[in-house]
């Protein structure tokens, strides 16, 4: 583990974009632009995706599984509960009546969907987690942060690029 973290803050989105472009175009050994760069922003910038490239999101799959599980287990569970030993006729309706069970299945479908989606979100976005040591509160105000992880050797180059694009601030992990 000889990698170090670097955080550069930018006040302007265009500047940040330029930095990313440059990082991408510059070959720096010990730094992989796809793996070692994280962009932090105070709001959700749809543009970030554009310049970072398409990254897959798997939350929907959780949703699907949750909803299907919720619905089917709900229906089966309710029907089974109705057909337990104490099955008692009610209001001339069958012991296992379909319309009420469909209503409940619908609710459980949503319940399962929502819960598992949240679970999926937590898994996919890696929350809850400890913040990285180079977290800067300005990111939650209006600055764009670019967090990079690089070999000791690449740090200098990266710093230069950051500085070139008028980084407001460059934070650096203390050396080992």
């Amino acid at each position, binding site marked *: 583990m000889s990698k170090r973290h670097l955080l550069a803050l930018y006040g302007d989105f265009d500047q940040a974009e330029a930095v990313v472009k440059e990082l991408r175009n510059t070959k720096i050994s010990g730094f992989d632009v796809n793996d070692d760069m*994280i*962009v*932090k*922003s*105070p*709001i*959700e*910038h749809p543009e*970030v*995706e554009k310049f*970072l490239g398409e*990254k897959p*999101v798997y*939350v*929907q799959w959780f*949703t699907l599984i949750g909803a299907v599980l919720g619905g089917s287990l709900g229906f089966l569970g*309710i029907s089974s*509960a*109705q057909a*337990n*030993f*104490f099955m008692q006729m*009610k*209001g001339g*309706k069958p012991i296992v*009546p379909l319309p*009420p*069970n469909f*209503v*409940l299945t*619908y*609710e*459980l479908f*949503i*319940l399962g*969907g*929502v*819960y598992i*989606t*949240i679970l*999926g*979100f*937590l898994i*996919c*976005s*890696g*929350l*809850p*987690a*400890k*913040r*990285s040591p180079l*977290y800067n*509160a300005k*990111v*939650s*105000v*209006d600055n764009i*942060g670019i*967090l990079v992880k690089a070999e000791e050797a690449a740090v200098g180059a990266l710093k230069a690029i950051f500085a070139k694009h008028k980084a407001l601030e460059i934070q650096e992990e203390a050396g080992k």
Partner: protein
Amino acid sequence: MKDIREDIAWAKINQDVMKSLENPRPLYWVILFFAVLTFGIGIGCEVYQYQMGMGVANLDNPHVWGLYIATFIFWIGMSHSGTLLSAILHLMHADWRKPIYRFAEAMTTFSLMTAGLFVMVHLGRLWQFYYAVPYPNERWVWPNFQSPLLWDAMAIFTYLSSSVLFLFVGMIPDLAIARDNMHSGWRKKLYTLLALGWEGTDRQWRNFRVTYLTIACFLIPLAVSVHSIVASDFGMSQQPGWHVTSFPPYFVAGALYSGCAAIITLFIILRYVFKFEDYMTLPILKKIVRLTFAIAMVWTYLNCIEFASVWYSHDAVSKDLLIQKMTGPYAPFWWAMIFCGSIVPLVFAIKRFQTNIPVLFATSLLLNLGMWLERWMIVSPTFSHGYYPWTWDHDQWPSMIQWGIVFGSFGWFTLLFMVFCKMFPSVSMYEVKEMVYHRTLHLKQNGASEQTVEQGVH
């Protein structure tokens, strides 16, 4: 009339909203005091009722339900506007919702919690409420899944938990801001905990967007189903005045209506109390008012449909009940409901009043009253004028205990809501930033000539 300024500094947004967590206007404490007071009265009434029996509410044998159920529906209905603002308008990319959806969402949560209380208050044997919960038990007995009340319980549970999660998830970036800006103390710790270590990385934002959208998609049918199910508490029964096909949409429209009215009320209060004049701007209010007006007309229409369908049916009993509502002992309340629900919103059609805060405040209170009366007029007249003429009611007026608990619920709601607004950012900071950012972009693209174009969906 000024909208949110595009050149507003993002740091100022943070500061302004964070200020609301610190020092609201004195009125806040006055409201809080009265909320605690009313809530205390409600608690006292409930304790008395618990000890003596439900009879102290002055319900009687044909007339077994009263204000509790009516108020229950009222609170359930109120919860719908939060979903309307946060989910429906979110899907429609109406960005004017952004400064206000947070408190609307909170309103959803808290009014659902209040509604849940009424289910409890209403039970004759509150201490046995767990019989209605489907948990595996030693006796092998399950609740009756055929009962619309159970659907209700299930729907409300789903809705409440989903709403809380939705509120929470949507608040994570703001909690992170609060965490970063709060001076150290227990609240900072709380925000740190709740923010889950949010850093605003691209990965987090990506998943956040999808999650938020997905839950919004779920919430919309859920909200509709919740009030349809509340409607089927009545619609699934056999009683005249309840067994009406149009009840589900009628209830949903009523729910949105009362929710919007409540949003107007709370909008005005919050704007003043927390000094949110820069965010909760009059143009936004104007949009809500227009929306409310539209829903009011939908509600009026559905009301007419209900009368017409009763009128043209050959169901003499229902017809009888309708006439009774208009002319019988409940007539004053019924006509008050028509007045508040259908006549008063006409004020909103007048442009001058659409941004007149005192007028809007008064009107929205009247609308709320009207919608509360509507629920009462759905519940009570059927009991006092049902199928069986021998048992028609002669002496049924809610007792002070019943009123006390109803008022107590308003105290409870206000208490929760006010504490929430003081504890958590009630204006979504990151989304206001987004809104400003997008507008700025928009302005840049269109040049400076086109100014103050109203955005969003009308």
